[in-house]
């Protein structure tokens, strides 16, 4: 999420589910207070309603920053970018980052896809950084071997 929400959250706002429920919405736009048993029984809710929204991950990132945990905040910001990516594709991306699973070109394409298709520049940065280190440490797949053996 590049669009940062200027909520001025402090540690006192945690837990958001107790202290700031009005800030919490599902990816489908429902307020968290709409996630009731009645709504479950009447079939109004789908599994999609029980997922976290990228805006919420940004709020949690602000709380992590306010708690002096910059790495945790960065993890939440990468996560916010990943919310929209389908489960199977997320798993595919993870597998592509395993040692010698991808060529340099493969990782470059993955980074581009993250950046352009999914508007995920922070995740793309992580993949580009991996590509640079993998090249230096001989952890890239040989060209043409991309779909073949994936482990050494």
């Amino acid at each position, binding site marked *: 999420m590049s669009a940062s929400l200027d909520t001025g959250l402090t540690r006192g706002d945690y837990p958001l589910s107790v202290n700031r429920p009005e800030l919490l919405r599902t990816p489908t736009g429902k307020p968290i207070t709409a*996630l009731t048993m009645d709504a479950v029984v009447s079939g109004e*809710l789908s599994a999609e309603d*029980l997922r976290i929204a990228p805006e919420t*991950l940004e709020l949690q990132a602000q709380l992590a920053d306010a708690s002096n945990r910059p790495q945790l905040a960065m993890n939440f910001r990468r996560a916010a970018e990943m919310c929209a990516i389908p489960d199977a594709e997320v798993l595919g991306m993870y597998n592509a*980052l395993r040692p010698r699973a991808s060529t340099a070109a493969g990782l470059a394409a993955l980074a581009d896809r993250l950046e352009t298709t999914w508007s995920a520049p922070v995740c793309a940065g992580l993949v580009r950084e991996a590509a640079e*280190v993998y090249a230096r440490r001989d952890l890239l797949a040989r060209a043409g071997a991309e779909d073949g053996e994936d482990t*050494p």
Partner: protein
Amino acid sequence: MTATQPRPSDQPRHSLRTDVLEARPVNLDGFVEEWPEKGLVAMESAFDPAPSVRVEDGRIVELDGRQRADFDFMDTFIADHAIDVASAEESNALPSAEIARMLIDPRASRDDVLAVTRGLTPAKVLDVLKLMNVVEIMQGMQKMRARRTPANQAHSTSARDNPVQVAADAAEGALRGFAELETTLGVLRYAPLVAIALQVGAQVGRGGVLTQCALEEATELELGMRGITAYAETISIYGTESVFIDGDDTPWSKAFLASAYASRGIKMRFTSGTGSEVQMGNAEGKSMLYLEIRCILMAKGAGVQGLQNGSISCIGVPGAVPGGLRAVAAENLVASMMDLECASGNDQSFSHSAMRRTARMMPQLLPGTDFVCSGYSAVPNADNMFAGSNFDTEDYDDWNTIQRDFQVDGGLRHVREDEILLARSKAARALQALFAYLDLPAVTDDEVEAATYANSSADYPFRDVLADLKGAQAVMDRGITGLDIVKGLESAGFHDVAENLLTVLRQRVSGDLLQTSAVLTADFTPLSAINDPNDYAGPGTGYRLEGERWAELKKLRHVTSATDPESEVR
């Protein structure tokens, strides 16, 4: 030949006392001499690097004697993601003795210590820990544990992968106080049924208990994404590049996976531990603790909120060398002084000696950790599919007594049998109703009856394994989610259990459980290092076992009444 009966020449006569000692269980344990060149050494090795750090243009260019061009991927990841570059040179310039003193000095707050430790290199952290004896390590843990209130975690598994057993034992475990419950399988294809059973049982025992199913990374993530499990933990990392690669991962793949979990609102921690690198055959000649410190910093750099460490499944390795359990206590402290949640081991059988098993957990139980055990076996050890834990159901009363003896909170409590039987029966009946609703293989009334009174998997009727495996596959094929479980429980009349599970699922929308050391209290309040920060500042401060909780822990199975010595306190 001589006229007298010769004594077998190669067997000198032993004293009767030696015979007694030889027969002691501790002598069935394995002990081995140190071999530092191969990394078979706990924390004092001449082959570990000396600390150093150099920063140029806002970037670490030298780390523990290595120049940037020679960094392996652990060095690179730690230098670029874990260490606070702004304070690195200053923090590493402090004498190690001064940092060690800060760890035990109550006048230095947890935040004061973190201001220094976030800039330290792995070798510098090791240098600090090498100055500390085990009591000092415990003092450090008392202050550095992230969450003020300690907790405990259990394994709930079955040698037959019987979901009915898992549900009943999960309910009992939750009722006894475990904040997290973890399962795994003998036959992996059973996972969906057993994970559902664990979730149902947990929410019967005590609403808000978090559950997980340890599987390979992709399946574990899928069950989490579906809301069948609530958190994940078996995301292994290693301290050398070569072993990390053998595990088919890199720090970047694991960091990506950490974000994948957070993107689905799922709590997650990594797992590492002393001894794993030497056990996997490539410690690169470094001590176990040095390599574990690299893991801890890698985890911090990935932005994961916590770590399960304390040797874990490799405990036999540090357990076999001199000072090994001191190193294990030290690695827990390092996780905490890197501001990570620490689920502190005590989760694998490692000794035949009851005395040694108990001693092993003292450095975690006495100061308190975020989770004293990262797997106390809430089933008999024969049913423990994590290859046995350091403690199991037979030890419940001993554990409760030790808590009472020392007035320490190890997360458990004594529960009266009538309450336990009710919870076990209800868990089995809830699972019975849910399986019927989801058209999964039936749970019979005989199984419910057995679950209520059982001790181990041997006390249950056999299930039709083939039918169960088909049912498990159907859970995956039909895309059953946590929401379906809520609906099933609600429609079958288990309203409170359904409500508990829905509340747990709702938490992932809020993301509150993603923060460091988060658990859910019995009233479903997220409790983490943010709203329950460890404020230890010396005697009389920090978490104290007192009030209602202490009254609860004074109860045991048999306590004689002071007013009527003929009766027992209930």
